[in-house]
């Protein structure tokens, strides 16, 4: 609004709606109210224990003042492709609950982000809640971002969630990149490569090389397209490696 990109006729402050601030666990998932501040998300004991990837992503958003005020619903609805929560939320398979006077509906993260700053929310809808599935034992996740400074947006961000079995074989892999496309994107080639293999260093390395296969990232002041492609592979390698070692620790 300050930049005159938007001049709405009316603004409704939903900050007073108490039911949107709750975090609770139910039926194998965590329901995170839309007004949950980034700072709460980063520090909440349920989130830290059951969805550490989300807590990790929230803890590196901007700076303390922004984390004290910004909300998960706001970040997702804004849909900035370089923001942290859209990428993290896509990786963990979060479901967005949208509400209007006509009722509620569920939207998968993968259907929610449509384009730069564009979501599938309808004109009369707000985000009410985000449902986050609790990963099974043997799971590990990591959120890593490369940025020009601690409180700048990501050049490349990678959110990874993997599950390994007792033989160290990867059973599920979700690898999502932010900052390299109009929306968060799954590195499908990497995911397919990792599943069914033991996550040894050379497998992680080879899988990460495929992360940039289908990307055509933008060039902007934060980095050229070539730089982003190289960094996408490099950050993916670190994030998958870290997730694998965390998964071993939790098994």
């Amino acid at each position, binding site marked *: 609004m*300050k930049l005159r990109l938007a*001049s709405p006729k009316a603004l409704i*402050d939903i900050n007073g709606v108490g039911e949107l601030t709750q975090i609770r666990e139910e039926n194998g998932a965590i329901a995170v109210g839309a007004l949950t501040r980034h700072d709460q998300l980063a520090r909440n004991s349920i989130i830290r224990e059951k969805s550490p990837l989300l807590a990790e992503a929230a803890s590196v958003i*901007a*700076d303390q*003042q922004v984390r004290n*005020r910004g909300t998960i619903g706001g970040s997702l609805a804004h849909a900035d492709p370089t923001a942290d929560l859209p990428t993290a939320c896509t990786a963990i398979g979060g479901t967005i609950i949208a509400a209007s006077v006509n009722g509620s509906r569920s939207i998968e993260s993968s259907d929610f982000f449509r384009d730069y700053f564009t979501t599938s929310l309808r004109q009369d809808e707000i985000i009410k809640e985000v449902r986050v599935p609790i990963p099974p034992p043997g799971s590990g996740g990591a959120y890593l971002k490369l940025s020009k400074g601690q409180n700048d947006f990501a050049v490349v961000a990678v959110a990874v969630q993997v599950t390994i079995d007792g033989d160290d074989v990867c059973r599920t892999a979700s690898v999502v990149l932010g900052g390299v496309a109009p929306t968060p994107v799954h590195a499908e080639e990497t995911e397919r490569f990792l599943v069914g293999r033991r996550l040894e260093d050379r497998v992680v390395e080879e899988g990460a090389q495929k992360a940039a296969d289908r990307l055509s990232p933008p060039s902007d002041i934060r980095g050229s397209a070539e730089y982003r492609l190289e960094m996408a592979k490099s950050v993916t390698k670190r994030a998958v490696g870290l997730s694998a070692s965390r998964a071993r620790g939790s098994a």
Partner: protein
Amino acid sequence: MPNLTERLEINVRVNGRQYQRRVESRMLLVDFIRDELGLTGTHIGCDTGHCGACTIMLNGVTIKSCLLLAAQANHSDIQTIEGLAVDGKLHPMQKAFLEQHALQCGYCTPGMILSSLFLLQRNPNPSEEEIKRGIEGNLCRCTGYLNIVKAVKAAAIRTNRKGT
């Protein structure tokens, strides 16, 4: 077109004192604090949420007051830099900034001090790294960060000693 002439009534508690004003719906909180209440210790640096010069405490947590409308602060409890000293006696954090030469031009100082206070509320004994992370939302164009970090450390030590 948005209605720019609409005025809203706002009741806020600032530094322990209750205020009531009618302001334009589009007025920013930082402008409200400076222009309506005359508390000009809260500065405007970038007006885009980057620099942290307008940092205040809103209901006990630091926020950037250029990123909120005044109307959103209705019924809230605000603390600004003016509320720290008691009877002309500087707050320990202000004293530490003074003693450690943690300010040059002084523009970022009110925001720095509020962010530092919030950090110590959370973490009474922060490491140097934690102090740096705690003030990452506050820019000092004089680049006097070294002494700012020293001041926060000194304030932490002094406050902890007092507490025991």
